[in-house]
């Protein structure tokens, strides 16, 4: 028998990732993701069609109102494609925030009966929502090809191959904010009211409805640091449409900020997970 020894005592470290434990539970991680994918659209008529319909309806609404009626510029880009790029980034972020902020409350029963590294659930949400993102990516691709064929944009280029990198940072940032909110919601239920509000605000402070270039030039780097989502939206437009007002230091600011929030998220989440099941 291999001598596996578990020592249970109060952990004192600040940053105790235990990546090996997460790796040991990789099957569970995938099964949770599979569960969420399978269950999400059970007993709905449209099924995964909702993943396509929702952004398309929003895009139509924005094209008609924000761009059409209010006349807000889309930076010389075809409005539907412009909005779609922003929407898929923002909706991935908001989905992750919603599920992860509730993770301790929604899984209270499970967490009080079985131990597994608690971070597995938020990470599995990144994967299951990734499927939605993939489907929406294909929708955009179809739009981009169509607009390219009509000659309204340059058409697809190698830039599309960089989109996965954008997605990785998007996932990291969403996870980071989700962990912070999840940990604080477990302690202070007020945060449960705060999250939907925060998600709505994030739509307006992120250039989803307006181009990045609307942000005054001297504030762009600061904005990128405070809200990396702004950079991520602009990057995804760059991948599909080719135009961008981003500069290198804004990209760097967003990456640094993402890493900082991720570290903070992991720390608070782990502090809370140790004893939260006694008080929730």
């Amino acid at each position, binding site marked *: 028998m291999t*001598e596996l020894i578990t020592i*249970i005592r109060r952990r004192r470290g600040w940053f105790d990732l235990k990546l090996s434990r997460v790796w040991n539970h990789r099957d569970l991680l995938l*099964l*949770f993701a599979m*569960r969420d994918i399978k269950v999400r659209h059970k007993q709905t008529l449209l099924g995964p069609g909702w993943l396509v319909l929702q952004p398309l309806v929003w895009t139509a609404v924005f094209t008609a109102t924000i761009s059409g009626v209010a006349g807000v510029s889309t930076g010389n880009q075809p409005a539907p494609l412009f909005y779609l790029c922003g929407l898929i980034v923002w909706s991935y972020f908001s989905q992750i925030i919603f599920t992860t902020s509730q993770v301790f409350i929604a899984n209270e029963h499970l967490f009080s009966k*079985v131990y597994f590294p608690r971070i597995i659930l938020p990470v599995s949400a990144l994967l299951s929502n990734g499927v939605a993102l993939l489907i929406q990516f294909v929708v955009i691709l179809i739009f981009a090809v169509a607009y390219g064929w009509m000659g309204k944009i340059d058409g697809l280029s190698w830039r599309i191959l960089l989109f996965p990198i954008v997605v990785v940072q998007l996932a990291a940032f969403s996870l980071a904010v989700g962990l912070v909110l999840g940990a604080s919601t477990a302690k202070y239920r007020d945060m449960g009211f705060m999250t939907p509000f925060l998600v709505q605000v994030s739509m307006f402070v992120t250039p989803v409805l307006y181009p990045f270039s609307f942000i005054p030039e001297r504030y762009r780097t600061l904005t990128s640091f405070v809200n990396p989502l702004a950079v991520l939206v602009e990057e995804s437009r760059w991948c599909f449409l080719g135009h961008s007002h981003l500069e290198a230091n804004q990209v760097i600011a967003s990456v640094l900020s993402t890493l900082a929030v991720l570290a903070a998220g992991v720390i608070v989440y782990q502090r809370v997970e140790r004893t939260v099941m006694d008080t929730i």
Partner: protein
Amino acid sequence: MFGRGSDTGAQISRDEFYALRDITFSVPAGKVCGIIGRNGSGKTTLLKVLTSITEPEAGEAILKGRIGSLLEVGAGFHPELNGIENIYLNGTILGMSKAEITSKLDQIIEFADIGAVLETPVKRYSSGMYVRLAFAIAAHLEPDILIVDEVLAVGDAEFQRKSLAKMKDAAGEGRTVLFVSHNMAMVRQLCDMAVYLESGTLKEVGDASSVIDSYLAVAAPRQTTRARVGTEDLWGELRIVAAGSEAVCDYVKFGGDYDFVLRLGAKQPFRRGVARVHIFEQEGGLISAFESLAEGVDQFDFSQMIEVVFKVRSLGLLPGTYTAGLALYAWGEEEPTLSADSCLSFDVVAATVNDAYWPYLREHGIVRLSHSAELRVLG
């Protein structure tokens, strides 16, 4: 396996308390250890610490070998997923790998014995089928240390027997088992040793039988045939009186007629109530339940005070000590609104029945089923 609690002088505030304090014991590999104690004595907290669900403030526990815990059957079952999908999900939650489950899948399905519903979402299962499937998965968890909370008390008798056998096998195969239970008969039957906790401290540890004896000596409720539980807002009082009399009796005679009177009171009107009285043997096993609805008393509304009278005629409990508890449900609710296990304890004494001394004693069992005997001389 070792556990050690130590006083490090950690500061705690006034509304906090230690659920466990200074618990030190070790369980040798291959032993089955029962953890006993009253409600609130810290049994569950101890399990949660040992299974990493919650972290101790101080002290440490050292566990040698792979740990599997069963604090609940069917943890993480998703109602929309089918049987097979839930086997994988629940199995991995309990710590098995996907490959391990695949290799045991046939055994699990055979053990569960629920027929051709494995492709159906478990939300369509009967509660019996649900529990069988869940336990089948749990039973195939093969850790070096198995930590179990009273989950055996589920399912039908045949299934309980199967589950109990599986637990014994686990011990026989050299696994260490930690088992929390209120059922002393089961602990006595299964465990080599026992740990007895009282208000978060270790009262006694040692050979199962002797620990159980000292627990029963202290833990049995005071001999009383009248008890009141609940709060000002909702309370229940249970008493045993001789049929037709009002006086609470000191003891109960075998074969006698008694009324178990449940008096209920509430400040706010309580709607659609269903009342139950539970009779337990001394070691905790449920012998019988009286339920108002089953006996033809409709769901009742009440405020202030009412009485539900359960009339027991020629009481069949053999001489010995028993406990009784009460429960009040709102109709349709799973959990009782008011409940107390073993809130009163009573002795049944031998008595004359039909002018003859009744020779039955406790060694003849727990209850006498109504019967008669005759001798036929043939040829």
